[in-house]
Structures are given as structure tokens and as C-alpha cells.
């Protein structure tokens, strides 16, 4: 097992634990962050299931050595952005929690952009158009 694979598996386990902890801690009662999500017509129970499913799939991807997929990070990104806005609107959320959420979001975003090669793809398209 190469170093990269080990890192991927460790990351998958961390994501699994984080997502499951987050999913299980989402209470049925209203919280301010959840109310941001509920405003979009998403049921907290559905959101919880999305967290658990995403966490499990991320672990599966890591264990099988597949490529990361941005879809399975979307639920986390949504929750962390909602938490950021809740914090900015003076909700009772500790700064360290929001910072930790956003750090993980940034890390996952970098991972997705590196794997998706979006910049390279867009760059090539633009370049070809200019040449042609």
C-alpha cells in the first residue's frame, strides 16, 4: 500500500467519523443553522440521512481507492456555509466551530478542484477557441 493510498484511507475514515458525528448530532428540534436549510424546504431528517450516506460513500471511495466526487461533499459544504451565515447573524455558535467547518470545506474544495481538473479543462477549452 503506497503512501498516497494510506493518506486517502485515513482521510476517508476522518470524513466518515465527521459526517456521521454531524449527522447523528443534527437534532430534530430547530437550530439556527438548520433553520437556514429548512428555509430551502429541506427536511432535517432528510439532511441527516444525506450526511450519513455521504459519510459512508466517502469511506467506501477511500477504501476502494476511487476518485473523490464533489457530490458527496455537497451536504457538508451546505451545512458549513449555513453555519457561517448563522454566525454572522449573531447566532450563538462558537467561532472555533465555524472556523473548523470552513477549514474542512476549504480542504475538500481544494481536493475537488485538483481531482476535477476543472481549471485545466476550462483553460484548454478557452485556449483552443482562441487558437481556432
Amino acid at each position, binding site marked *: 500500500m503506497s503512501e498516497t493510498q494510506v493518506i486517502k484511507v485515513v482521510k476517508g475514515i476522518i470524513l466518515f467519523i465527521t459526517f456521521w458525528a454531524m449527522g447523528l448530532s443534527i437534532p430534530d428540534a430547530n437550530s439556527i443553522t438548520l*433553520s437556514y436549510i429548512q*428555509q430551502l424546504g429541506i427536511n432535517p431528517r432528510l439532511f441527516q440521512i444525506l450526511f450519513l450516506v455521504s459519510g459512508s460513500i466517502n469511506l467506501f471511495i477511500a477504501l476502494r481507492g476511487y476518485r473523490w*466526487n*464533489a*457530490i458527496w461533499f455537497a451536504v457538508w459544504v*451546505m451545512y458549513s456555509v449555513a453555519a457561517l451565515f448563522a454566525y454572522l447573524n449573531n447566532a450563538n455558535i462558537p467561532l472555533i466551530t465555524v472556523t473548523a467547518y470552513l477549514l474542512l470545506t476549504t480542504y475538500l474544495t481544494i481536493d475537488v478542484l485538483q481531482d*476535477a481538473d*476543472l481549471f485545466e479543462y476550462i483553460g484548454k477549452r478557452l485556449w483552443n477557441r482562441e487558437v481556432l
Partner: protein
Amino acid sequence: MEQGSAVAAIAAMAFVLVGVFQFLRGYVQSTNKDYLALREKYEALQAKNVALETNNLLWKNRALSTEKSNRKLKNQLAQCSETIQAALNKTRPIPDLSQSNTDEFPDDTVVPE
């Protein structure tokens, strides 16, 4: 509050879109024979590269340990030469022949009867 919900939704949607792009790209790549052949070559080269790098590290490690043992041997050699020099300095000096004992060096002028 509406703004926060909207931004959260947009961020999540962006991730979903990138995810769809990744899925589609994976599908297109898996159906492209040229890509698959290239990928196989790339993976083989990567494996070879890893092996070469490991070998390189081993050699570097060996060179380092040789250098270390060389240094140790040089130190030992220096210590040995110091010891030998000290031993040589401690040896009895060559006796002065002009003030030598008559028993050892009988005077030629005195001839015994």
C-alpha cells in the same frame, strides 16, 4: 437569513455540478480505449518510478552509512597514530656514547696485565 440560505444552496449546487462533471468525465474516459491504454501505460510508469525512487533512496542510504563508517575509521586511524606517536615519545632515548660507562665501553688506553 434568506441570503444565507441562498448562498448555502448555491455552494451545495456548485459541488453537485462539479460532481456530475466528474461522473461524466469518468464515464467518457472509461469508454475511450485510447485513454484507457494511456492510463495503463501511465500507471505502469508510475509504478516503475516508485520502484526507482525506492532504489535511489536505498542507494543514498547506503552511501550515507559508508560515509559514516569511513569517518569512524578515519577517527580510529587518527587515534591510533596519536597513540603510536605517544608511545614513541615515551621510549628510552639513545644513550650518549661520550659519557658512557667504562664497563660497557672499556678504555683502549688501559691495557690489563
